[in-house]
C-alpha cells in the first residue's frame, strides 16, 4: 500500500471567511479559477452576503521572473546540446562531456545568482530587496546541491580526489576564508603538507599517499603524547585539530559556517583518503555533532545527506518538494538519466521519472507568452507523452498576431501535427471570414487542406463577384497553383478567373474553350451557369467566329439543360435563381446569339472545307 509522505499542501485563498458557502472551481488552460458559491441550487438564495470575487490562481509563477528567464533560456540550450550528445560515446570521453554539461548548468545558475544579487542590493524598497535576497539563497542552495551531485554522481570522484573536490566545493560556498587551513598550512611540517597535496599530476598511488599520511599522523600523535607543545595551548589545540579531534574542531564552531564545512574539515584531518561509500557515515555524524541537538535539520541538510548516501531518488524527491518550480529537478534528473543512473520506474505519466519531471516543467513554460517556445523542445524529448502533451498545449496558445499564428503553425507542421494545423487554420480562417478578409480566409483554408471550408470561401468569392462585378484578392487567386485542386469550387474559382484573364489578353479562342469546358466538365456549379453563359455573349457577338459549330451546339445544350431544370448529377443548388423577367430576356438574347453564331460557324467551316 502506497503511503504519500506528508499531508497534501494546503493553499489558503484569502477571502471572506464564510462557513456556509462552498468553493466553485474550474480549470483554465494554464490556471485555476476559484470563487465562493453555493452549490445547493435554490431559486432564492439565502440572505447571506456573497463574495463577488473570482480568484485566478496559478502555479509556476516563476516563469514571470525577468531574471530567471535567462536561466530558462540558457539552460534550454544546454539541455538540447545534452540530448544531442552522441549515444555511441562511452567511457572517459562521455564522462568528460557530461561533466562539462553539468558545469555549464552550474555556471548558468551562478550567473543568475549574481544578477539577482545585484538587483537585491539595488532594490529601492526593503521588501522586494528581501525577496530578491531570498531568491539568491535559493539559487545558491540549488548550486550547492548540484555541485555535490556532480562530484558524487557524475564525476564519480574516487578516494583521494574525492576530498579535493569536496574541499573545492566547500570553499566555493563558504564566503569567509577557512582560517584554520591557513593556519595549518603555515605551521609545523609544511614540507609534509606540500608534498602531500601535490596530488594533481603526481604519480603516487593511493596506498603511497595513505602511508605517507599515516606516518605524518602518527608523528603528530607522538608530539601530543610527549606534550611537546604543552607550554603553548594554542599550538596544542592546533595539533589536536590536525589529528582530526572532533571536540577540538567544534570548539572553533564560529569559524565553521555549517555542518558540511565541519564534515570536510574533519575528513581532511582524520581521513583524507575517504572512500565514497564511507562518506555517509561521516556526514550523518557531522550533522549530528554540529547541530548538537539544539536544532533540527533543514530541508537542505536532508537533501545533502541523501546525496552523501548516494540515494539519488531521495535527492530528487526532496528537491521536488522543497523547490517552487520544476526547473532544477527536471534538468538535474535529465542529466543523471544520461549518466545512466536512474533505474526506470514505470510511472503512469511519462515512461520514467525523467519524462515525468520534464513534462511538468515544460507544461509550466506554456503558461508564459513567449517561453512556451522553449517548452516545445522539451516535449520533443519526452518519447511517451511528449507529443500528445504538446498537442494539447499548443492549441491553447492565443493567436493574437499573424506572426504568432505562423510560428505556432510552423511548429505543428514540422511535427506532422495535422489535426492541430487544421484546427488552428480553421480558427484563423473563420476569423478572417467574419472580418470579410476573404483572401486571408482562403489562404488559411488552403493551408489547413480543408476542402469544405475552401468551398465555402470560394462561394463567397463568387457571390461577391456576382454582386460587385469584380474579384477581390486577384493575386491570391491567380497564383493558386496546385492548391486549386483542393476543392471543386476552388478549382472553378481559379479557372473562372483564368477565363477572365484570357479574355483580357484577347486570347478569345482559349477563353471560349475554357468557358465551355467549365460547364461541360461540371466543375461550374449549376447556379453559376447563367453567369457563364452571359459571359459567353461578348464572345458570340465578336466579328470573328470564335466558337466552332460543335462548341455552339454544346453551348445550346447547356442552355437547354439549364432551362429544363434537369438536375445535374453532383450539383448542389446554392445560389438563388435570378429574377424571372431578367432571366427570360437573357435567355432570349442567348438563344439569338447562339443561333447566329451557329450559322456563321457552319458557313465558315463549310467554306474552309470547300476550298
Amino acid at each position: 500500500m502506497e503511503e504519500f509522505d506528508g499531508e497534501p499542501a494546503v493553499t489558503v485563498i484569502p477571502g471572506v471567511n464564510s462557513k456556509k458557502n462552498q468553493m466553485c472551481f474550474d480549470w483554465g488552460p494554464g490556471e485555476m479559477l476559484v470563487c465562493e458559491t453555493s452549490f445547493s441550487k435554490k431559486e432564492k438564495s439565502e440572505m447571506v452576503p456573497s463574495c463577488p470575487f473570482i480568484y485566478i490562481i496559478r502555479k509556476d509563477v516563476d516563469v514571470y521572473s525577468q531574471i530567471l528567464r535567462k536561466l530558462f533560456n540558457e539552460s534550454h540550450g544546454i539541455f538540447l546540446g545534452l540530448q544531442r550528445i552522441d549515444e555511441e560515446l562511452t567511457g572517459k570521453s562521455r564522462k568528460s562531456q557530461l561533466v562539462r554539461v553539468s558545469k555549464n548548468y552550474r555556471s548558468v545558475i551562478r550567473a543568475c545568482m549574481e544578477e539577482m544579487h545585484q538587483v537585491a542590493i539595488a532594490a529601492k524598497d526593503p521588501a522586494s530587496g528581501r525577496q530578491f535576497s531570498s531568491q539568491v539563497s535559493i539559487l545558491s542552495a540549488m548550486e550547492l546541491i548540484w555541485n555535490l551531485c556532480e562530484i558524487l554522481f557524475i564525476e564519480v570522484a574516487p578516494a583521494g580526489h574525492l576530498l579535493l573536490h569536496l574541499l573545492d566545493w566547500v570553499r566555493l560556498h563558504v564566503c569567509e576564508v577557512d582560517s584554520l587551513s591557513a593556519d595549518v598550512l603555515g605551521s609545523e611540517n609544511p614540507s609534509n603538507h606540500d608534498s602531500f597535496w601535490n596530488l594533481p599530476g603526481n604519480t603516487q598511488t593511493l596506498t603511497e599517499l595513505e602511508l605517507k599520511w599515516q606516518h605524518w599522523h602518527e608523528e603528530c600523535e607522538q608530539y601530543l603524547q610527549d606534550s611537546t607543545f604543552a607550554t603553548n595551548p594554542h599550538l596544542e589545540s592546533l595539533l589536536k585539530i590536525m589529528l582530526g579531534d572532533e571536540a577540538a574542531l567544534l570548539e572553533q564552531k564560529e569559524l565553521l559556517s555549517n555542518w558540511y564545512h565541519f564534515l570536510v574539515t574533519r575528513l581532511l584531518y582524520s581521513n583524507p583518503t575517504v572512500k565514497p561509500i564511507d562518506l555517509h557515515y561521516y556526514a550523518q555524524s557531522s550533522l549530528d555533532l554540529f547541530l548538537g541537538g539544539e536544532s533540527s535539520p533543514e530541508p537542505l541538510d536532508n537533501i545533502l545527506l541523501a546525496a552523501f548516501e548516494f540515494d539519488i531518488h531521495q535527492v530528487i524527491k526532496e528537491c521536488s518538494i522543497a523547490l517552487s518550480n520544476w526547473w532544477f529537478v527536471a534538468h538535474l534528473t535529465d542529466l543523471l538519466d544520461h549518466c545512466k543512473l536512474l533505474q526506470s520506474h514505470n510511472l503512469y505519466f511519462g515512461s520514467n521519472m525523467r519524462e515525468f519531471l520534464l513534462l511538468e516543467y515544460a507544461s509550466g513554460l506554456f503558461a508564459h507568452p513567449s517561453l512556451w517556445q522553449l517548452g516545445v523542445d522539451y516535449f520533443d524529448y519526452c518519447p511517451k507523452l511528449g507529443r500528445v502533451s504538446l498537442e494539447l498545449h499548443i492549441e491553447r496558445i492565443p493567436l493574437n498576431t499573424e506572426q504568432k499564428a505562423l510560428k505556432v503553425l510552423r511548429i505543428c507542421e514540422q511535427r506532422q501535427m495535422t489535426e492541430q494545423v487544421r484546427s488552428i487554420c480553421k480558427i484563423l480562417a473563420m476569423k478572417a471570414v467574419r472580418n470579410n478578409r476573404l483572401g486571408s480566409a482562403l489562404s488559411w483554408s488552403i493551408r489547413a487542406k480543408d476542402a469544405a471550408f475552401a468551398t465555402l470561401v470560394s462561394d463567397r468569392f463568387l457571390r461577391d463577384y456576382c454582386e460587385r462585378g469584380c474579384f477581390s484578392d486577384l493575386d491570391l487567386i491567380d497564383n493558386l497553383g496546385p492548391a486549386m485542386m483542393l476543392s471543386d469550387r476552388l478549382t472553378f474559382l481559379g479557372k473562372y478567373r483564368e477565363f477572365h484573364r484570357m479574355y483580357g489578353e484577347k486570347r478569345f479562342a482559349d477563353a471560349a474553350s475554357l468557358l465551355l469546358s467549365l460547364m461541360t466538365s461540371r466543375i461550374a456549379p449549376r447556379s453559376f451557369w447563367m453567369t457563364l453563359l452571359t459571359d459567353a455573349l461578348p464572345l458570340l457577338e465578336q466579328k470573328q467566329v470564335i466558337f466552332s459549330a460543335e462548341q455552339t451546339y454544346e453551348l445550346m445544350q447547356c442552355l437547354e439543360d439549364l432551362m429544363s431544370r434537369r438536375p445535374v448529377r453532383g450539383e448542389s443548388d446554392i445560389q438563388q435563381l435570378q429574377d424571372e423577367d431578367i432571366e427570360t430576356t437573357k435567355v432570349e438574347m442567348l438563344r439569338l446569339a447562339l443561333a447566329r453564331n451557329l450559322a456563321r460557324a457552319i458557313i465558315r467551316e463549310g467554306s474552309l472545307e470547300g476550298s
Partner: protein
Amino acid sequence: MVSVINTVDTSHEDMIHDAQMDYYGTRLATCSSDRSVKIFDVRNGGQILIADLRGHEGPVWQVAWAHPMYGNILASCSYDRKVIIWREENGTWEKSHEHAGHDSSVNSVCWAPHDYGLILACGSSDGAISLLTYTGEGQWEVKKINNAHTIGCNAVSWAPAVVPGSLIDQPSGQKPNYIKRFASGGCDNLIKLWKEEEDGQWKEEQKLEAHSDWVRDVAWAPSIGLPTSTIASCSQDGRVFIWNCDDASGNTWSPKLLHKFNDVVWHVSWSITANILAVSGGDNKVTLWKESVDGQWVCISDVNKGQGSVSASVTEGQQNEQ
C-alpha cells in the same frame, strides 16, 4: 508554488454559480443568481468588463465557451428553463439563440468536441437532455432525449473526439465518421453513456451504477492518446469514482473509488492534459488529485478558502514513484 495571480471583482449582486475561462485563458465568463452573465477580459492580470448579458429570468447555473473556430460563442443555462446562446458579432455580445424546450430548470450545458460541429448538450431537472446542433444561417436543430434520468439530469459531459477504426487518413473533403458519445449524471443515482446511432438518434449505451445518491457531476477526461477512456463522477453520497474503460469498443467500465468525503461532492473537473482531477466538496475545499504508479489516487493539494492575510506558499508534491 500556487499563488493568486489575479482577483476579478465581478460585481455580481448575488451568488456566483459558475466561472469559466475561455479556450486561451484570455476571457472569463461568470454567471450568477442575479440572473446575469458577465464576460471579462483578463489578460495580463487585468480585468475589463466586456459584456453584462441579461436575458435569463432566474438564477443562471452554468456557462460554457464554444471552440474558438466557431467564433466567440457562449452558452448559459438557468433555473428559468431556458438555454441561451450568446455570440460576439462586430465587437458586441448579443443573444443569438434561445432554447426553451424544457419544463424545468436546466442544470448543465456542455459543448461537443469541435470536430463534431457546433453541438450543445443540455441537461434539465425535467429529466430530459436536449442536443442543439447549429445548421447554419442562425438555425439550430433540436433533438431531445426524454426521460434520460428520472427526477432530473444534473450534468452532461462529452467524450473526446476519437476517430474510430484505422488511422488511415480520410480523403480530403470527407468528414471522418466520428462516433459521438457523451455521459450524463442524474437524480436516479446513475451515470448514463449515450451514443449517436447511424440514423442520427441517440441511444443509451451504458448504465454506470455505483452511487447511492444523486449524481451531481460527471467529467469525461481529455484524451492523451492512450486506448483507455476515463470518466470522473461525484455524488450526493460523498463519493467520487473514477471509471475506466480499457477496450476500444467501450463496453466494460470499472469504477475505482477516489475518496469518500464527509459531505456532498458537487463538482469534478479535469485539467487540460487530464493528469489532475479537481474535486469541489461540501467541506469548503477544492482538492487536487493525481494518479500514482499503482493506480491509487493521491491527493496532492488542498485549496481552501478561509481567513488569512497571505496565501501560504505550497508546492505540489511529486507523485510517489516507489
